[in-house]
C-alpha cells in the first residue's frame, strides 16, 4: 500500500499529528435522519420511562434481607 502514510514524519509524533489532522475530517450525517430525529424529539413528551430497575433493585434487596433473616432464624432454631 503505497500511499500518503509514507509521507515524511509519520514515524515522529508530530508527523502523526499532522496526518490525524488532515485525515480525521467530520462526516455529515444524513439530513433526513437529522430532521426525522428532530421531529421525534420535539414530539416526545418530556416523561422519563423507567425500565423498572429501581423496583427490581428493591425486590432483590428485599429477597436478600428475607433470606438472611430466614437463615438466621433457622440457625438459631437448630442451635436451640
Amino acid at each position, binding site marked *: 500500500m*503505497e500511499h500518503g502514510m509514507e509521507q515524511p514524519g509519520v514515524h515522529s509524533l508530530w508527523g502523526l499529528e499532522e496526518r490525524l489532522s488532515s485525515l480525521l475530517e467530520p462526516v455529515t450525517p444524513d439530513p433526513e435522519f437529522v430532521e426525522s430525529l*428532530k421531529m421525534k424529539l*420535539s414530539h416526545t413528551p418530556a416523561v422519563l420511562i423507567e425500565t423498572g430497575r429501581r423496583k427490581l433493585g428493591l425486590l432483590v434487596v428485599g429477597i436478600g434481607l428475607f433470606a438472611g433473616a430466614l437463615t438466621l432464624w433457622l440457625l438459631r432454631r437448630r442451635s436451640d
Partner: protein
Amino acid sequence: MTKQKTLTVESLTDDNAVRLACTGNTEAFSYLYEQNVKRIYNYIYYRIGSGADAEDLTARVFHRAFAHINKYVEKGVPFTAWLYRIAHNLTANWYRDNNRRREVSLDDHFDLPHHGELPERTMEQNQEKELLLKAIRRLPADRQELILLKFLEDLSNGQIAVIMGRTEGAIKSLYHRSLISLREELKQISGIDNTSNY
C-alpha cells in the same frame, strides 16, 4: 405559541437554551439538538465505524439527554460535555451488548465519504484513512475518545479534561501516550498489511 415564548426562542443562546430546556421547552431542546447533533454523530461514527449504528446511537443519546435533562443541571458541566459523556457510555454499552472485540478485524471497513476528488486520490486517501481508523479503534476507549475529541472537534486539553472528567495535566499525559500507542498500532497493522510505511 405565545408572544413571550416566541421571543424567548428567537433569542436562544447556548446558556439560556439549557435553562429553558430544563423547564420542558422543546424549542430550546431542538436548538441544543441542532447545535450538537453533528458532533455527537461524528464522535459515535468514528468510534464504531457504522453509519446505521451511529444514527441509532445518536438518536439514543438525544432521547436520553431529553429524558434526563434535569440531572444535567445538577452536575454543572457544559451541556456538550454532558452529551459526550452519554455518547461515551452508550458506545461502551454498544460494544458490550454486541460482544464486539476491541481489536478490529482488518476485514472491517468504514463507509468513508467521497469529496468529489479524482477517484485514484480518493481511493488512496480512503485506504490511508481506513488504516488510521483501524489503528485508532484498537486503542483503549479513553485514548480513542481523546484522539477523536482532539482532532475531530479540535478541542483544547482543558475542554477535553472537562468532558472526560480528568485534569488538564492528566489529559496532556494521556495524549502523549495515546500518540505513541497509535504509532505502535499503525506499525503493527502495516506489518499485517505487508507494507513498511511505518
